[in-house]
């Protein structure tokens, strides 16, 4: 674009060959980066240089590169997704950095997310939580008309707020306890708010929270770090709602 100024940055990147390798930080230089590069495009450039130097490029998860698939997962200078409000790594642009900056890049760190390689972690545990009950048990076909049950607009909107979760796991990565309560709370709340999800609400919250514990996620101690790092701005009020559902479930 119009500005021709480029940046040179020092990257300190976590490299780990496999799940069993202890891993260590390596230092790289990113050259000729413009303010319009996305963070991942900056890493692409570094990787091209590494390949040309016969070195193994840094592997990192990414796919849609438009902030919705939830694949990208890097902790940048201690902040999951880099700390820009409501932004995933792939949507983070280099205009947020200055020439000469040193940037630490690490994978999500949590016991429930074992490192696969470099910046890639295994997030299967999040699937396990959903499999425990993150659905309505409706059959394909044989359901009533979409307008048969009215849903007040504010309820639909709040359910959508919860449903915006992209399952990236930043909440876990940011949580000092490695807890997945925002992820779990968002799904529990979405389905608890909607009339279609009410019949199974009690069983769902019990099963999903139990699954989270079994997967090795920590417990919530209300740091609220999860809400602050969530790239979709999912609010911690959904953890409160999940707690409420949990209490209700005790009397169900």
């Amino acid at each position, binding site marked *: *674009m*119009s500005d021709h100024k480029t940046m040179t940055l020092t990257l300190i990147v976590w490299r780990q060959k496999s799940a069993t390798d202890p891993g260590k930080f390596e230092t790289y230089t990113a050259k000729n980066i*413009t303010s*319009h*590069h996305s963070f991942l*495009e900056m890493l*692409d450039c570094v990787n*091209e240089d*590494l*390949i*040309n130097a016969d*070195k*193994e*490029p840094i*592997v990192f998860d*990414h*796919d*849609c*590169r*438009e*902030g*919705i*698939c*939830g*694949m990208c997962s890097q902790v940048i200078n201690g902040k999951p997704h880099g700390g820009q409000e*409501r*932004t995933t790594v792939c*949507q983070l*642009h280099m205009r947020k950095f200055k020439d000469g900056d040193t940037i630490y890049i690490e994978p999500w760190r949590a016991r429930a997310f074992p490192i696969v*390689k470099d910046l890639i972690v295994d997030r*299967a545990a*999040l*699937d396990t939580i*959903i*499999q*425990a009950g*993150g*659905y*309505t*048990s*409706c059959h*394909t076909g044989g*359901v*009533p*008309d*979409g*307008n048969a049950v*009215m*849903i*007040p*607009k504010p309820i*639909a*909107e709040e*359910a*959508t707020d919860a*449903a915006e979760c*992209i399952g990236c796991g930043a909440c876990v990565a940011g949580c000092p306890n490695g807890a997945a309560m925002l992820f779990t709370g968002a799904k529990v709340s979405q389905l608890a708010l*909607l009339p*279609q*999800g009410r019949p199974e609400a009690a069983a769902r919250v019990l099963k999903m929270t139990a699954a989270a514990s079994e997967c090795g996620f920590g417990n919530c101690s209300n740091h609220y770090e999860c809400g602050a790092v969530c790239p979709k701005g999912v609010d911690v009020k959904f953890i409160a709602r999940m707690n409420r559902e949990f209490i209700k479930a005790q009397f169900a």
Partner: protein
Amino acid sequence: MILDGKCPTGPIEKSWDKHRFDLKLVNPSNKRKYNIIMVGTGLAGAAAAASLGELGYNVQAFCYQDSPRRAHSIAAQGGINAAKNYPSDGDSIMRLMYDTVKGGDFRAREADVWRLSQVSNNIIDQCVAQGVPFARDYAGYLDNRSFGGAQVSRTFYSRGLTGQQLLLGAYSALSRQIKAGTVQMYNRREMLDLVVVDGVARGITVRNLITGELESYAADAVCLATGGYVNVFYLSTNAKGCSVTANWAAAKKGAFFANPCYTQIHPTCIPQAGEYQSKLTLMSESLRNDGRIWVPKKKEDVGKLPSQIPDADRDYYLERKYPSFGNLAPRDISSRSAKEACDAGLGVGPGGRGVYLDFEDSIKRLSEDTIRERYGNLFEMYEKITDENGYKRPMRIYPAPHYAMGGLWVDYNLMSNVPGLFVLGEANFSVHGANRLGASALMQGLSDGYFVIPYTIGGYLVTVKPGEVKVDNTEFKKSVEDVKGKTNKLLNINGKKTVTEFHRELGKITWNDVGMARSKESLTDAIKKIPALRDEFWQNVKVTGSGADLNQQLENAGRVADFLEFGELLARDALHREESCGGHFRVEHQLADGEAKRNDADFSYVGAWEFKGNDKEPELHKEPLKFETIHLAVRSYK
């Protein structure tokens, strides 16, 4: 060969119901004896895997991502069509069918489109039952918005997140079946080959992307729901991992590739900012509901700030050229108009590759808050990428490759010409003809997945004995050896150019020569250049690392190698189709006013190509298209 789509005969209104009745059923207690492979877990794949698992079949589902929830269906923003006619504005199943056939420029099968329109209503009900939070009005009823190519309001939506919400709905249904044990989920697996035994699809060879191991899976039917191929243009709105690899593997094993030249270039994307760019970002075309598209009338105004250009000096070219549809003209028309404006030197922004999408009038009419409520996330996304505020100055947009209408040829039952191989969603060619209307992709994916394949696959399975072929069959071993050979070859070239460099070069060829405006010269040029680039690739590509662990370079190398073969077929199809229709625009075939000139007498057919080897020309098979319900007409949006 003349292909038979096996469409039901008789009145179209009864066609799907009659066909469903005619289909043979699999006995409930026999269902669990059948194995079905589902490759891809987007809308079509996840919906199908969940539905088939629920019916009692044994399903093995595969995806290359770390979770089925990440498929690129998730990125669809705008909405999903259905003929519910809730607003009572004249919609009906027939009108949805009419709009879709006409929108596709009369290059789709009528029976398929009827079925799609008919089940569109079930899809909405299904998703609501799953807890998909569709937008509601203040009375609590489902809300609708309008979309390009239609004069009724039939699009259901959930903010700018419709694809995400629908995919997560399908993913939740899939998760339920995984828990129930009817579906086995294999994440981080990429299908690299289709195993065909005695002419019948019997399984697949996949690479475990974590360990690098090649794994064989056998089944009684193989379903591909592997999406589209527009990453052949390098820069597109698709996810980085989207590829033609699975489909191309099937094509090389005998499945016909239909209409590859029908590619959709989406009009409302954020323009490219630089060479390093890795992908283009789309903004829902629902923006065109309230945004007005314009370019300066005078070339000397191009560099000015938009606010300095008075209304009289702006050309609202879509409103001028298509007064009845205006800014809501179909995608192909809008995209081509933008290109024409930019080619005429009136484009704005870097490289003159952009047109304005202006919300000033809507903000005046409705208030900024209303616009924010409708499109807030899109404005936010635009600002993140461009660092410009879309409320204060018009957005800049430019067309970008977005969707593939073409795909593997399938009959009415979604089965390809290879028995046992089914193809769903964007991966098949069926319903969109030469151009897809907005909010129809989600509809097709879910229609195929929830409401078509669960019926039609049974009709095939009753004809085969379950578990006849196992992975110890020699064809599976041979397939693994072939894939291993290709992988080793890629790793051992050790040339000078990276995979991305080759992909970028391929993209330049395809975008310039096989993009929005194609000519005999450009296509002939592409047919020369692509094989040359392919040869260079196999001599000079550099892939570091090994095949025995997670190696993203190797994954990409395989995908680009396939695009380098497929790209040639795309150009050949475009060259053979001597007409302009939908997303396929040949400059030789246009009306005096620059509109596409279709040739129904010679080209009213599906062009399905049989792969004969990279050094041989593919063979064309035709399936004639008949239009009995919607009569052939010149598509006009004026």
